[in-house]
């Protein structure tokens, strides 16, 4: 397809709404993701208030929760609904669609040298399905009996029986519908990414010359295609149990004075199906963030990424292992203890490629000439939280140790650091780095620094103390711990955590302001502001459908020729031909 094929007249609707241009779709993903992020983070601040000052009346509860907070005191069912929807929104809508959707769309065609995705139409459908699922999820907040409240893992029977909890009625139905649409969106997107990377690479762009971002997005898409359908089937079977009286997940239940008819199903089956997606999902969230980090670290360190081959190998190893470790969420679910042994083994194996990645990042910084742009700070921050959060995985992945910390705040601290905060940092790093590419303007760096430093301090302030609450034995998803005098001495810690969380929340306003303001009034971006090697910076600042006005640039080298001896500049973009006698690194 030539560039001129796209030079037809675009109306407002085809350009901004039903656009098939991957760059516009990526912006749509980002902005939808950010809006969902505001909702998700806002919810977490509400339930943090409840946890720090349990059962206290707050004006903000009355105004935001209405009838769910009589006299300003949060209702326990609403607490559970908030943690459920917070988890769902953050994991799927912000860190899956908002992160991977945004940057896969923006970068795959631009970095491999393609004029657009393999199918622009499917890409558009993928976004609009995501949009629709977001609308359904938000709509579920307003149903009569409240939204889903069974935890983001929606284990039946709690999620299957409206008698067990009000949120398991209409709210859960909408949750399932929303997720089904979301999965369809994710599958269409992923298939498009895979096909595009395999088929549409420009001349010279061999797989071993791909930037690590593309490797990460490519492998993420494959994991998504392998695991998301399993969640879809779990959701469908759950819908059957809920609405058509089947017994896939339910058996021997007595509730509200009544014996239900379900026989022979098993909630453990649901757990297997859920975590068959649920665990790879962690890497669906994390790998794109790591890919972005690889790119941002190398560019700003003005150094090649250390150990490119090992980085690719570790992405592949993590992806493979991620599909055979799901049972570590179920050590004490009642499954056969022998399975627990197997999953302990596979789970701890995943620490090896993760360690390799961390060490390679650190070595990339060594003897670099670090340009500490906000994107770079977020990437370094990511490595830091990835290590801090990842290390406790050694405890949780060990079936023996998991017995006593399973489902406590220790787990909450672990996964928020290793996938929540890390992936969020990846998202921020990506936004700061590619904002010029997306909007043709620069984000304000000073506001970026404020945003990073406050967020970085608060992230540790929130999640480090949480390990202690968990090791004190406090279960997660407790509306309050005042029912146990034994936990009275944790009140202090909860207050500290909430204060840090509120400050962190405020810091995100700085980011939002910077984002919106710079979109319209930011300084005009140069074509290649970070002096980067990858192809997207050879495309003109002004967007048009087709990416490059003339021929697509040809690629002659890998993406990491930074500070290569024998070159004047400290970067050599991928489309620059090899000098006479210049050697390409063997990889």
């Amino acid at each position: 397809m030539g560039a001129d094929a796209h030079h037809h007249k675009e109306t407002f609707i085809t350009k901004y709404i039903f656009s098939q241009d991957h760059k516009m779709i990526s912006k749509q993903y980002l902005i939808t993701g950010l809006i969902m992020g505001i909702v998700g983070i806002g919810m977490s601040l509400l339930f943090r208030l409840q946890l720090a000052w349990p059962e206290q009346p707050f004006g903000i509860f009355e105004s935001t929760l209405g009838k769910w907070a009589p006299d300003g005191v949060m209702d326990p069912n609403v607490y559970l609904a908030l943690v459920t929807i917070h988890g769902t929104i953050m994991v799927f809508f912000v860190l899956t669609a908002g992160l991977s959707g945004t940057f896969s769309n923006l970068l795959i065609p631009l970095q491999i040298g393609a004029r657009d995705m393999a199918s622009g139409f499917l890409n558009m459908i993928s976004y609009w399905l995501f949009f629709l699922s977001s609308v359904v999820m938000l709509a579920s907040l307003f149903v009569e009996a409240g939204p889903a409240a069974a935890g983001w893992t929606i284990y039946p029977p709690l999620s299957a029986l409206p008698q067990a909890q009000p949120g398991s009625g209409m709210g859960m139905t909408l949750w399932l519908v929303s997720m089904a649409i979301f999965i369809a969106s994710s599958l269409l997107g992923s298939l498009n990414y895979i096909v595009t990377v395999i088929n549409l690479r420009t001349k010279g762009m061999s797989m071993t010359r791909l930037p690590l971002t593309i490797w990460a997005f490519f492998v993420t898409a494959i994991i998504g295609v392998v695991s998301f359908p399993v969640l879809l089937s779990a959701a469908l079977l759950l819908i059957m149990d809920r609405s058509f009286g089947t017994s896939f997940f339910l058996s021997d239940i007595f509730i509200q004075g009544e014996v239900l008819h379900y026989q022979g199903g098993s909630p453990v089956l649901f757990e297997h199906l859920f975590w068959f997606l649920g665990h790879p999902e962690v890497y669906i969230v994390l790998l794109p963030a790591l890919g972005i980090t690889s790119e941002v670290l190398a560019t700003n360190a003005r150094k090649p990424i250390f150990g490119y081959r090992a980085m690719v190998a570790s992405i592949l190893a993590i992806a493979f292992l991620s599909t055979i470790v799901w049972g570590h969420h179920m050590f004490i679910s009642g499954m056969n203890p022998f399975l627990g042994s197997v999953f302990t083994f596979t789970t701890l194996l995943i620490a090896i490629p993760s360690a390799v990645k961390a060490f390679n990042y650190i070595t990339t910084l060594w003897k670099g000439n670090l340009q500490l742009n906000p994107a770079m700070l977020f990437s370094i921050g990511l490595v830091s939280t990835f290590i801090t959060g990842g290390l406790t995985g050694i405890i949780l992945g060990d079936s023996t140790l998991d017995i006593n910390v399973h489902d406590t705040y220790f787990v909450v601290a672990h996964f928020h650091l290793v996938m929540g905060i890390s992936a969020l940092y990846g998202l921020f790093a990506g936004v700061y780095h590619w904002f010029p590419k997306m909007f043709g303007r620069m984000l304000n760096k000073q506001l970026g620094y404020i945003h990073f430093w406050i967020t970085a301090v608060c992230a540790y302030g929130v999640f480090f103390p949480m390990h202690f609450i968990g090791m004190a034995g406090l279960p997660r998803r407790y509306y309050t711990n005042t029912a146990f005098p034994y936990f009275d001495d944790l009140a202090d810690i909860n207050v500290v955590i909430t204060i840090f969380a509120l400050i962190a929340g405020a810091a995100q306003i700085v980011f939002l302001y910077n984002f919106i303001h710079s979109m319209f009034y930011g300084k005009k971006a140069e074509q290649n502001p970070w002096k980067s090697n990858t192809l997207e910076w050879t495309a003109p600042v002004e967007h048009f459908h087709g990416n490059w006005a003339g021929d697509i640039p040809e690629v002659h080298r890998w993406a990491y020729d930074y500070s290569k001896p024998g070159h004047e500049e400290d970067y050599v973009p991928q489309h620059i031909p090899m000098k006479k006698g210049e050697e390409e690194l063997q990889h």
Partner: protein
Amino acid sequence: MTTLLTIAILLLVSIAVWQITKIFQVAQLNQKVDDSQVANDKDNDWNGKLMFAFLVFIYLITIYSFWAWGDVLLPESASEHGKDYDRLMWISMALIFFVQIVTQALLHYFSYKYRGRKGLKALFYADNDRLEFIWTIIPVIVLAALILYGLYAWSNIMNFEEDEDALVVELYAQQFNWKARYAGADNVLGDANVRFLQDFDGLNLVGIDASDPNGLDDVVVQELHLPVGRKVIFKMRSQDVLHSAYMPHFRAQMNCVPGMITEFAFTPTTTTEEMRQNPDMVAKVQKINKIRYDKSQELIANGEESLESYQFDYLLLCNKICGASHYNMQMKIIVEEEKDFNAWMAQQRTFAQVIQ
């Protein structure tokens, strides 16, 4: 506590003020320099230094947390397998702290040391197979050791034998309380199913099958008593949704799943009385009572009832989200000498007596 918060907030405010002044400085520079939103030497310099400060911050928050909150952690295990558990936990923790301290130091020190300056060129250093081999193989060896120890402990805990003299107890979960069923003189639990719950006008609290003779001597109670030093085999059931029987002081947890019976076993080693004498526990309870006393003064001032003073007891908590009152689904556990246990048991009514 308040001091820490004040310091933290002051720190953040001062960073913010510093930043804002810088914004104004840069706003003036804007007119001359074109790439004003790309980090310059000055930005690299102060952010690099802050990176080093951040390393200090990570260390400080770690030390502070242990100093301020070290006493909230669980006391030493009150069960036999818990000793193994605690040892493995400490080995893992020591390892984690070592790696954490070293890697964070390298990461942040490099970020500080190699902060960029105009005109400098980075080292073109893309690969080192030997180095990469080393930091692949070291985690492999360390993890192999941890995995082996972990699997050894796991199989000891989970593959328990059904000894003759072990006490068999059923933990029965429902929204939102716990019940315990003892197997009685025959030490065999009678068959049970939710279908029997409505028999005997609701007196059949856990749905025992009255036609199974093994069930007639079963005893259903709302407070769990365990004899010290005797192995207890728990059989878990749930009547409605998933619950999880979590007994943190014994390093014990297992989900309760409707439609199936799950199992866990441990041997309590410390009676409730002994645990109350444990110096760590004494200090913890004192701290808790101080907090409760202060809160009570507030409550009394508002004309409300004061809080009772707290005495330590082992706990069984629900640790799987189960609905509105999940946060208050608990049962007291009392570990006592065998003779006290027998005396207590003798006072309980068997199923046969209850349904008469």
